[in-house]
């Protein structure tokens, strides 16, 4: 920990209407893992993009190993030894592992790719990360964790001195996270400077030596991990005392109350080939039903059937006791069912439209094109929900593609809330967003349930599911394996059922 490898001083970056970074300093030493912390919209991604040359700066300087630099783009940055692995894995799933690792830098002779050396090169690089896979296999056949490591291997292929990892763990399970953190530690031993961004506080504490906290584009401070506690960190990130989540449980209706409420939706032997095996489920008004299961357990597929995003091959659905069929999302919408997909980008947002337009989309769809919402009404709705959900920037005409992940999620929530649904299906609503927004969304769920709205809540974080749900449905291998009242239920119980499929 001798001299600074990378120093950014007084970085300022302004977008139309948003001051994304305001006088931010950041430094990085060789052989350290430095975490960049902050809520959504704090400016983490912007700082990384400034560093890698995706954006220019309005003020401030960057020096790398003593020389002032201003990269014209990620390619130039990589040439200089600053490699980045982005949150969404940017690889080609249809190419082989080796091709992905060496893409654009294939060893060639007379313009012809030399496959042998390329495979060996890929194997060497992956071995450095302790990954041993068949490098001629198609990338899509590998697990997400391996794909993430392939992305890192690719970043290390050039002589990297600085490695930027932007949310590398957001789609990994616990074991995979452990493997990745091990790789990060070993790269640190090799003298790399690693910039690590993650929303998972415990991972940051497990791996980082030092952290820099940003809030609303401003630098809050730089701390050694040893000198700060998780609670202090979170307090600095959100700028206020963390609300105590435990009190949430008491504010919603009790299990007995919702069990007595009328059945809103009743699914009988509902199933879809290749999606989820036939299951039966009653959802009462005001009830929060949690779906727990690993990735690929069929929890999303189940939710999609309840909305009509896919239509079922078998079984039937009754709403308020009347048989109906949910063949299209439109049918779901007409029955006042709302579905917030886990894929914000591909299944939620229309990025080139504004916040206002995205918010009114579902309501407008249900009214039909001939009955437009007046512009005044749209503005009213947009402004109201921007305020209620604290969407930032508070500009209804901002392009939704320019918002941070948490704020985009809130826009989608607003889209569904204004349709006044009776059943709200939330698939991973808190993934990839910061603690502040997570807390807000969970509080909102409790409040909606108290108002009589039924909620289906899917999350990989069991604590969340247990905190909010009246009942928990556990899935495993595309099958409902247990339906349990949330009474004295612990994360360990659920985990055991998820893992072993013990019928409860």
């Amino acid at each position, binding site marked *: 920990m001798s001299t600074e490898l990378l120093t950014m001083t007084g970085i300022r970056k302004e977008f139309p209407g948003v001051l994304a970074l305001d006088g931010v300093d950041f430094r990085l030493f060789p052989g350290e893992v430095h975490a960049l912390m902050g809520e959504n919209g704090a400016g983490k991604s912007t700082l990384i993009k400034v560093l890698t040359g995706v954006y*220019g700066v309005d*003020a401030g300087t960057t020096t790398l190993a003593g020389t002032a630099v*201003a990269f014209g783009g990620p390619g130039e940055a990589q040439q200089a030894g600053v490699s980045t692995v982005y949150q969404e894995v940017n690889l080609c799933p249809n190419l082989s592992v080796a091709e992905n690792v060496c893409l654009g830098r294939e060893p060639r002779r007379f313009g012809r790719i030399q496959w042998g050396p390329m495979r060996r090169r890929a194997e060497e690089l992956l071995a450095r990360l302790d990954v041993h896979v068949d490098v001629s296999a198609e990338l899509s056949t590998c697990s997400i964790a391996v794909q993430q490591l392939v992305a890192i291997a690719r970043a290390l292929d050039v002589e990297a001195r600085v490695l930027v990892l932007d949310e590398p763990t957001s789609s990994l399970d616990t074991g995979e996270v452990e493997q990745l953190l091990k790789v990060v530690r070993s790269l640190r031993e090799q003298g790399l400077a690693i910039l690590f961004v993650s929303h998972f506080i415990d991972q940051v504490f497990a791996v980082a030596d030092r952290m820099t906290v940003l809030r609303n584009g401003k630098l809050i401070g730089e701390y050694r991990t040893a000198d700060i506690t998780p609670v202090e960190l979170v307090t600095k990130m959100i700028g206020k005392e963390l609300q105590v989540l435990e009190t949430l449980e008491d504010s919603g209706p009790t299990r007995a109350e919702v069990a007595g409420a009328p059945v809103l939706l009743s699914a009988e032997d509902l199933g879809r080939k290749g999606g989820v095996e036939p299951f039966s489920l009653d959802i009462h008004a005001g009830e929060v039903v949690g779906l727990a299961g690993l990735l690929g357990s069929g929890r999303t597929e189940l939710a999609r059937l309840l909305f009509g995003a896919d239509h079922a091959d078998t079984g039937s659905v009754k709403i308020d006791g009347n048989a109906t069929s949910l063949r299209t999302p439109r049918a779901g919408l007409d029955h006042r069912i709302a579905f917030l997909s886990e894929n914000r980008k591909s299944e939620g*947002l*229309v990025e080139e439209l504004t916040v206002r337009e995205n918010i009114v*989309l579902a309501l407008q769809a249900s009214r039909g094109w001939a009955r437009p919402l007046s512009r005044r009404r749209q503005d009213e709705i947009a402004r109201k929900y921007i305020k209620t959900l604290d969407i930032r920037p508070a500009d209804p005409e901002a392009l939704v593609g320019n918002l941070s992940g948490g704020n985009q999620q809130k826009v989608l929530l607003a889209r569904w809330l204004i349709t006044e649904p009776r059943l709200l299906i939330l698939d991973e609503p808190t993934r990839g967003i910061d603690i502040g927004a997570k807390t807000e969304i969970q509080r909102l769920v409790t409040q909606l349930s108290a108002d009589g709205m039924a909620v289906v809540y899917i999350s990989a974080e069991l604590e969340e599911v247990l905190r909010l749900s009246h009942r928990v449905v556990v899935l495993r291998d595309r099958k409902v394996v247990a339906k349990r009242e949330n009474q004295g239920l612990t994360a360990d119980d659920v985990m055991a059922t998820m893992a072993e499929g013990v019928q409860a």
Partner: protein
Amino acid sequence: MTGLTKKRLFWPVVALLVLLLGDLIASPSFFKIELRDGHLYGNLVDILKNGAPLILIAIGMTLVIATRGIDLSVGAVVAISGSLACLWIADHPDGLGATLVAVGLALGLSLVLGVWNGWLVAALGIQPIIATLILMVAGRGIAQLISGGQIITINSAPYEWIGSGFVLTLPSAILIALAVFVLASLLVRRSALGLLVEAVGGNPEASRLAGLRSARLTWLVYVFCALCAGIAGLMISANVHSADANHAGLFIELDAILAVVVGGTQLTGGRFSVGGAVIGALLIQTLTTTVYALGIPPEAIMLFKAVVVLAVCLLQSPAFRRRLRRRPPRPGQPAPAPAPEKVEVTA
């Protein structure tokens, strides 16, 4: 929103004005408009009148392109619509009644062709470029079957009015195009149609999950586009008092696509501008008129068009404009602060 639209239409409008200014300098009488027998004549009137069919098709094409589609069959629909109308009038040469029936038949058939295109794209999920290529190729054949392989010449004053008549000194073709433009603009901006089309074009799956009936909407825009092409077909055949199955509307689909793109609507769908397409169509028509008015050899039209369109497209490209404005930063120096620029939808 208004600022954005203004910005998006800025370069096409500038190009149009520059071209007109060039005409004025080259030929001072270019802007002269005469009143003869209560009818207006002049180059500007010609541009509008001869550009009317292209404007119509460009309006329809805009909506199709906004849904990430494309309609290559408009030229064929022009030929079919004109042939059918002229065939009917040639057989029933008795004035207004026959004209109305002919127009009805032609537009009815255009609607059917639009339904066909929409069915292939929206119901069967065939890629738009392939789906409409079918009718583009087959359509000329259908038009020839209708016309019996002959150029049908007609002599019917009410029908010819559509292409070359006048209302209150103005050519009727201009008024028809204007009416369709106003109608289309009101339809997309006063109803929610515009928003829904942009949503479907921007992200079809997200739109479906938001409860939009995207398939129905896609179908609708192909029907509308074919209808516009049908009207254009009537106009073109009425203007020359004949239906030519082989040459009516030949390559007009390409001009229409150009007009739409020049007008700031991207082929990748999403945000669209009907007004932009009209300006694009006018720009292309002005080019043609300029070539004739200035005595440039007509063989050069295509090349001339290409150069102007290229210039407009370059000016619209954010990457090109940025390159014009700033040079790449030299290493060792901080990057120059880029002028605060609007983040554009048309990026």
